[in-house]
Structure formats: C-alpha cells, structure tokens
C-alpha cells in the first residue's frame, strides 16, 4: 500500500513538473504577436508534407525547418537567438 502511495505521489510530482516545464516552452499566438518585432526572433515552421502544403496559414517571416531534419539545422542558429517553432 505504502509503495502504491509513493508511486502515486511520484507520478503527480512528475506530471506537475512536466506541466510547468511545458508551460514555459509553449506560447500562444498573442505572445508571439507581441514579440514579432524582436530582432533576435527566428520563427521556424517545422511542418512538412500535407501539414504544410494544405495549410493556408503561413507566417510570412517564418523559415521552413523540417522537424525530421532537426540535427541538420539546429546548429546553424546561434544560442542568443529566440527560436519559435510551430507545427500543425
């Protein structure tokens, strides 16, 4: 029983930590809109295939960076830049 309670507590802690972590990493469109003028901002459209071609909504200044090729393009951006990735 004790082990079960401990496991449950651990799961809750892990879930909460993941939530806090993801909140920090995910932004909504208003937040992005507010920082559009920032010089260090790089918007990366990671959509590929139909997810990209069937969508009418594409941010004009966004660069295309396929998610599958992350290893290729991730090193080409300096660490002082703010990278915003958006997907389908």
């Amino acid at each position, binding site marked *: 029983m004790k082990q079960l309670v401990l496991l449950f507590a651990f799961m809750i802690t892990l879930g909460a930590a993941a939530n806090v972590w993801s909140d920090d990493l995910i932004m909504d469109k208003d937040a992005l809109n507010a920082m559009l003028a920032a010089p260090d901002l790089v918007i990366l459209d990671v*959509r*590929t*295939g*139909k*997810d*990209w*071609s*069937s969508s*009418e909504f594409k941010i004009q200044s966004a660069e295309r960076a396929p998610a599958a090729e992350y290893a290729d393009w991730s090193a080409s951006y300096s660490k002082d830049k703010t990278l915003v990735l958006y997907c389908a």
Partner: protein
Amino acid sequence: MKLFLYSIAIPIGVMLSPETLVLLGNSAGYNGALFFLSVAVAAVVSCMCAYSMFYLGRQADEGNELSLLAKVLGRFPAAALVISARLSVTLLAATSVLVTAGFAFNEIFVYWFPNFGFAFLLLGFILVFNIIDKSWAANFQLLLVSCILLSFSVLLIEGLFSSPSANITTQASELTSLAAAPGALLLFLGFDLIINSQAKNKLIPALAAICTIFMLFILWGAVSRAYVPSSSLIESSLPHLKAARSIMGQNGRLLMGVVVICGATAAVNGLFLYMGQTASDLAEQEIIPRFKGEKTLHRLAIILLSLTIGTLMMSGLAGEDKLTIYYRGALVLWLLLLSFRCFTAAYLHSSRKSFSFVAVTTGCIIGFLSLLLVTAAEYTREQLFFCLQVYICALLLMLIWPAMVKLFSIINR
C-alpha cells in the same frame, strides 16, 4: 438521363479533387499559350484513350477491364497491374485529400474543430454511405459533384464578368513551362472510372466528363491568371484558394472551401465505388472469393480500404513529404495501366477486325509521357522504386491469394 448522370459523377468527382486543383493552379502560372495548349492536348489524348478503351476495346470484346487485360497479359500480371494502379491511387489519394479537406474545414469554416477529426469524420460518412448501399453512395456522389460545379460556376461567373483590381503581368520562363507541360495529362485522370454496368456505351459518359472538365479547367486557368500573378500561382501550395480570394474575397474563400471539401469527399467516394467494382471483377476472374454476392464484396472492400486509410492517416503519412512522391508514383502506375489498356484494345481489335492506329498511338503517347513524368521528377529513383515495389507486391499477393483462399476453405471444412 439519371443513369448518364450517375456515370459521369464518379469521373468528374475524381478529376475535381483538391490535388488536381493544386496541379491546375500551378500549371496555370506557366506560360499562357503553352498552358492552354498542354491542357487541350491532354484532353485530346484522354478522348483518344477513352475511344480506344470504350469503343475499340468493346467492339472486340464485351468483358470488363480485368478480363480484357487478362486476355493479353495473362490473369495474374493483369490483376497485379489493375490492383497496383487502382489500390495505390485510392489509398494515397484518400489519405492526402481527406487531410486537405480537414485543413480546409478547420481554417475556413470552424477554427475550433480539429482538422484530423474532420478528415476521419468524412471517411466515416463515406464508409457509412457505401456500407448502407451502393445506390446511397452514388446519390451522395451526385450531390457532391453538383455542389462543386455550382460553387465553381459562381466563382467563374464572378471572375469572368468583373475585372481584377490590379494589373497582373508576370510570366514564367518558356523552359519551365515546357517541363511542366506533360503534367497536364494528370488533370484528366479519372475519366476511365465509369462503372455503371447498365450503361452499354461507356464512351459517351467518358467524353462528356472530359469535355466538362476541359471547359472548367480552361476557364479557371484563365481566371486564375487574370487575378493572381503567375509567380504566385506557381509557388503557392493552394493556388485555387488564392485565386478564389482574389476574385470574391472572403465569400470566394468560403466557396472554394466548399469545392475543396466536396471535391475531396467526391474523389474518395468515387474511388471507393470503383474499387468495389474492381473487387467484383477480381471475383469474376476467380482471383478472390465471391463471398456472399456483389454487395457483401463491395462492403468488405470498402471496410478494408477505410481501415487502411485510417491507419495511414494515424501513422502521420500525410505530414511527410514522401506522400507526394508515392502519390506521383501511383499516378504513373495509373497512366501505365491506361497505356496497357490502349494496347490491349489495339491487339484485340486487330485480331478480329483491323489494325487500330488510334489505340497504338494513344498507348505510346501515354506510356512515353508517364516515363517522362518519372524521369523529369525531382525524386526519379524513389518514384521508380515505389512503382516497381507496388507492382511486385501486388503480383505476389495475386499469386499467393488463391492458395490462401484454398487453405482457408480446407481449414473451414
């Protein structure tokens, strides 16, 4: 008249799929005269192909697509060719266009509705109509095609009788235009999907479908060129939506949304109806069992297709670039099937009557253009590999399937 409308609803629905609209819009951006010329030539070649298949072929033999091909190629190679071409197009086109329809619904009509959810909802609708009865699916097809033609007509009338706000003048290079010209043949793929067995002459519905689509595409191409700069048409992944918005603003966008959603549904429903017919043809050739009659076979085929398409969508294939490569490969297989059908018609005709110059020429033209499409493509090796892989798999399946059926029947006994 009703029978005629049912007969042309499937080819028109397939020819007006969102994939074709993208190809049409991109092609319209190329050099003006060459665009109209290539579409006209593609329409003539399609008419010649329909004449070879449905007139010369029928004159020599009254059989179905599979039985005619089997007489020349042999039962299993013919079945493998039909299956590889039809099945690969159905599975890949459905995965592609349903996802496109999902995006159109989400971005044009209801923002909160998940695009994937809508794609599955459409697949479910098509499945239900086909399971209830084939006639329900045929009526649904007619309704969808009417919606597409009506929406397109409104956009065309508005586009033709009002003038664009800005003077649009940009021209693509002659070389790029020439390279894109063979692709015009893909615009008319679908004219051969005439299934109504009661319609004695399939040639007239096929020609009617080609002529309707030709008029529509020429007018839409001209209107698109008048309202959207050529470079923008070539580069856009949704040129039809761009043109519609330029013509009628938000209302144009809504109308094109209807065209895209109905076009995707009509394309999938039309391909499903034809695949049901192909399953019957395979049963007639005793390659697959008859199960409990034609209706059960149709239902079973549609359920299997829907499950496979659902799995492909869930696997995220639509979000990968390779879907376009595979889809192009499947279209090449379709063109090769048409080419073989022309040669078959010529062979059967010559053995009974006289040598058919039209059928041989059409077979050669389509065969040559399909090879040109593969070699001119960006991913030639991948496309060729895909075509070969699909054909070999279909051939193996066709060879193993009867043995499996026999084995199951022994076990069941």
